[in-house]
């Protein structure tokens, strides 16, 4: 049951922020909502109830590293779409490797 609630709340919060990105102009401002803390909001609240606030705080500590990796991911996307002119789907999915490698590298450096 916990997982169904997590799925529904996550879906609603992430859809909400994505919709905010649709309705605001200019595009650069709307893009801010692409990095809204939607997954964190959906997850941390439920985690602090089910596994305690200390557990959720440790997750938030790691999230700092994940957010740094997201910054690098965004820069890679700008380069691939804006400079190399790749299709958005190819660039955004391909650049997930940048997120993964950065997150892993930063985790190994600071959190391991």
């Amino acid at each position, binding site marked *: 049951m916990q*997982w169904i609630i*997590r*799925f529904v*709340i*996550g*879906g*609603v919060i*992430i*859809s909400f*922020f*994505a*919709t905010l990105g*649709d*309705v*605001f*102009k*200019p*595009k*650069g*401002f*709307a*893009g*801010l*909502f*692409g*990095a*809204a*803390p*939607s*997954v*964190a909001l*959906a*997850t*941390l*609240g439920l*985690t*602090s109830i089910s596994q305690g*606030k200390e557990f*959720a*705080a440790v*997750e*938030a*500590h*790691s*999230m700092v590293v994940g*957010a*740094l990796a*997201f*910054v690098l991911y*965004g820069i890679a*996307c*700008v380069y691939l*779409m*804006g400079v190399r002119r790749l*299709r*958005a*789907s190819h*660039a*955004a999915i391909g650049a997930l490797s940048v997120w993964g490698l950065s*997150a892993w590298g930063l985790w190994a450096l600071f959190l391991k």
Partner: protein
Amino acid sequence: MLIKFKAAALAQVKVHEYVTRFLLGGATCVATGLIAQKCGPVVGGLFLAFPAIFPASATLVEEHERQRKAKAGILFTVRGRLSAALDARGASMGALALLLFAVIVWKQLPSHNAGFVLAAATVAWAALAGTIWRVRRWHTRFWIRYRAPKPR
């Protein structure tokens, strides 16, 4: 340029696109929870800043721009990709603000009410993201006005 709210843009998004976002969002949250349960909170926490919805959003931005140009009779254009790149630039700025969100939750959650901390961190995220975006625009205007090479 002023920030505008265009409710009409909601009508451009198709039902299957809303469903895709909902399913992707739900699946990401469940996956994050499962990773935290199996590998511990340190590894699970990394995925709280996973760009879950961005690939779908960027694809939509490109697709909508391409369709708009096609209606105007322009079949081959890179405007869609450039719009998606602008979206990605905004996401990078939002991700910088996400750092503040994570630090607030990390430091304040153990000693305060979870709902209050998450709400305060979200407000701080929105304020910092908006400020970074605004400063970036001022910087660009300043550069164009005073630093850009003048035509001879």
